[in-house]
């Protein structure tokens, strides 16, 4: 498994902005690619996995750096 194809830096932004940025950027990537969202708003830890569930995208993991959230475009 490879690392993220792209990193989206949303540090300093408050929710829902990191989720909106994720929703805008993910369709730009090919299916199967991984997008890493860096977001320091604590709400992102809840809302990014919730968005993945609502949109049928795959939430992979939280990474400590950022913190960051890896999302795979699955459709």
């Amino acid at each position, binding site marked *: 498994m490879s690392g993220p194809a792209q990193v989206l830096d949303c540090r300093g932004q408050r*929710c829902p902005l990191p989720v909106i940025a994720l929703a805008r950027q993910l369709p730009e990537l090919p299916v199967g690619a991984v997008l890493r969202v860096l977001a320091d708003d*604590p709400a992102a830890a*809840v809302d990014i996995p*919730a968005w993945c569930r*609502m949109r049928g995208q795959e939430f992979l993991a939280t990474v400590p750096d950022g913190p960051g959230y890896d999302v795979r475009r699955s459709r």
Partner: protein
Amino acid sequence: MTGWTVLGSLSAPIGEIPTPGRDSVAAVSPTPVNQDMATAAPTPAHQDAPTPVYLDAATAVPLHPVARQALLAALDDGWADPARLYTQARRARQLLDAAREATAETLGVRADEVSFTPSGTTAAHAAVLGGLAGRRRAGATLVHSAIEHSAVLHAAERHVAGGGTAHAVAVDRLGRLDLTVWAEAVRTPGVALAALIAASHEVGTVQPVAAAAELCAGSGVPLYVDAAQVVGRTAVPQGWSVLTASAHKWGGPPGVGLLVVRKGTRWESPWPADERESGRTPGVLNLPAVVAAAASLRAAAADAATQAARLTPLVDRIRARVAAEVPDVEVVGHPTDRLPHLVTFSCLYVDGEVLLHALDRRGFAVSSGSSCTSSTLRPSHVLEAMGVLSHGNVRVSLHRETTEADVERFLAELPGIVAGLRAEAGVVGL
């Protein structure tokens, strides 16, 4: 008013009691106040402003007419210190005793198990810290659900800061306690107290209190139940050792809490010694407010089944219509095993604070668990524990004055308000 007495409001059969309107900021303001500021309800800023619709009962319910009447009468009659030995004090003592008897009868407990506190928060702090102190020989662990009220969690933090431990038990996506984890947690050696909210104040999901209590009893662990959202609304669950509630959640005045400690419970006051309220809560009580709280609890409890039957379908309607008519919305909490009056949903890509202000401009008073609406800028720990969307969150909670027309107006306006905010933010079609 003929025949009405404050003692009667605590003991006579429940009846409809009319009430005059009064009270304003003017009464406490040293200078004349702007007319717009003079009423408690939001005043329309201009002629075509919408009629206010108050939908935040889970925070505070508008004062019940019985509470208003009892409060006014008790201000004249119950100002003396009930602990003193003269006529005025005896009158105050009579009111306090009657308030305690009435409350105990409504809750199905003994009068000497009931204490009044200066708030629901104080009662919750005392329940947790007193329950732990009374069982310090058994251990120093507090087991609690991950979705307790912040008053309980803050008391738990105090306990941990003092060297104790706290174990939060998870809930599922619908906000229901994980009973398997709970069972394991309470039977671990060293557990002094377990705490479980009767029903979530944020998402309305009713907790399996009876089953949780049985598991506690099996390990000899006392259970504290925060019943703030159920007292005066639904049947109070069984099996607990300590229970708390808050008067402004049932239509009583703000500033009165209930702390109920069952006989035989090892509970020790965490406060400096004081002889009032059986030593359970220090300081002189706001007796007129206590009397009003007790009188309105009787009235609310007598009307609870009727209100639940009326509000449950209105909440069902909100759940169904919001899900159907607002795109990209997550309605959270258990669909059926829930409080009769409360519903929560989150709107994708919408800022919770902006949504609250937009609703307020249209006359709707609601609350939110979104991080931007909290002073700590953290999302609601309840939404976090459930793993549901936390931004764009709205909690709607109904009360005895909420009409079907209020709900219909909210449902008619909400989709347009959300769509407008999404268009402004440029997030349509994401």
